[in-house]
């Protein structure tokens, strides 16, 4: 039964929530507070970075689903891709929001054309276009094919965009997250726990969304059968 599949999600949510809470506690109580210019505001990163990682993971899942769809023509991969991109977009918006708040705290401005932030802005625009594309195709298999093509092209373009943003002359704003993301005073354990928690949260959300979409589909077919 489909509703039963929804019930397994709470367990996953509980583990994710516990890990995220533990990560937060570690970040604020255990991890040393950085006394350099970044100061206390650096604490934002304990969730910001895992969310960014999850956003990219979601787009990666959509990329794999797109390839599988083109190979198999199985609609379930189309649904998976759509759901993954929807969640990736949600996470990307959170990355932008928290990134902007951090930028405000660290540099005193709400927006800086910093490579990672800029990349996420473009990513948001890009994957919003994915949904516009889906809206404009009626025939189901064609919509799935085009959506898959776009998911592939977009995912290939993301790292390219990130490299390209580094060509911009380094002007007022330094590239803060130097190579390897060396952040003074950061604590790897807190990061690691938050990252696992966030990834589990993404997986739980993905499963739930998938279950809802399948439920929708089943309902649709049921209605058609009753109507016939």
């Amino acid at each position: 039964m489909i509703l039963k599949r929804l019930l397994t999600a709470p367990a996953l949510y509980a583990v994710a929530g516990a890990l995220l809470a533990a990560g937060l506690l570690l970040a604020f109580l255990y991890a040393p507070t950085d006394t350099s210019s970044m100061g206390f505001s650096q604490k934002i990163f304990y969730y910001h970075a895992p969310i960014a990682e999850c956003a990219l993971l979601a787009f990666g899942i959509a990329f794999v689903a797109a390839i599988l769809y083109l190979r198999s023509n199985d609609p379930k991969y189309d649904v998976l891709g759509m759901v993954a991109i929807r969640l990736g977009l949600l996470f990307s918006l959170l990355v932008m929001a928290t990134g902007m708040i951090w930028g405000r705290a660290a540099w005193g401005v709400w927006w800086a054309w910093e490579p990672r932030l800029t990349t996420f802005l473009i990513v948001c625009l890009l994957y919003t276009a994915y949904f516009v594309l889906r809206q404009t195709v009626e025939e189901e298999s064609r919509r799935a094919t085009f959506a898959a093509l776009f998911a592939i092209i977009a995912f290939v373009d993301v790292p390219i965009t990130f490299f390209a943003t580094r060509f911009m002359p380094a002007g007022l704003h330094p590239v803060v997250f130097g190579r390897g993301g060396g952040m003074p005073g950061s604590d790897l354990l807190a990061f690691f726990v938050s990252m696992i928690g966030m990834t589990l949260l993404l997986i739980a959300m993905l499963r739930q969304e998938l279950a809802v979409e399948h439920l929708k589909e089943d309902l649709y077919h049921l209605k058609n059968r009753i109507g016939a």
Partner: protein
Amino acid sequence: MGGRQFVAILRKDLIRELRTKEMLISMFLFVMLAMVIFHYAFTVKESVDLTYFTGGMLWVTFIFAALLGLNRSFAQEKDENCLDGLLLCPVDRVTIFFAKMTGNLIFLAIIQAVAIPVFTVFFVKHGYYGRLPSFLLVVLLADLGICALGTLLATISMNTRARDLLLPIVFLPLIVPVLIAATSATTAIFSGGSEFGPLGAKLVFLAMFDIIFMVAAYGTYDFAIGE
């Protein structure tokens, strides 16, 4: 991929365009108008040196001009159901892609052959003849990227309900890397400055972009153009 078929499709597109010249004329007018508009938009005080802005102005103009051309190149095929005829021919889909891409590249190059000298005369204060070969290489590599990605996306958007409305929405965010690399390379060449980093890295980057998206188009064009 058949060489003869490639030439036939390309010739067909060129001949059709040269008969009416409507696309070339409108693209040309667009470029000139863009120049005038940019001039007024950026002249924020008396005697501004627009040299530093010219790279950006050029590439914004070219990308939008390319959009016009890309939309046209498939709208015509779709309008009279020409595409169905083309698909019925015993031609590889990939051959169609490369022929269309080359056609778009030629139109864009024609526009640039007019626009670049004009923009140079109007905006660029320093001579850059010594760096002309590297500039032309930047133009060629960026054009290839624009036309490879653009032709692939134009094929997809032509098959949707929104058609020419969809293309800019999907094309512009994806072409940002080319815009960044081409603009910073062009600005470096025009201004003669070194603060934009080494040119070689950008050329390699643009070439990589071209290769990646041509390979992507090669692998996916069958799906894009449909049955």
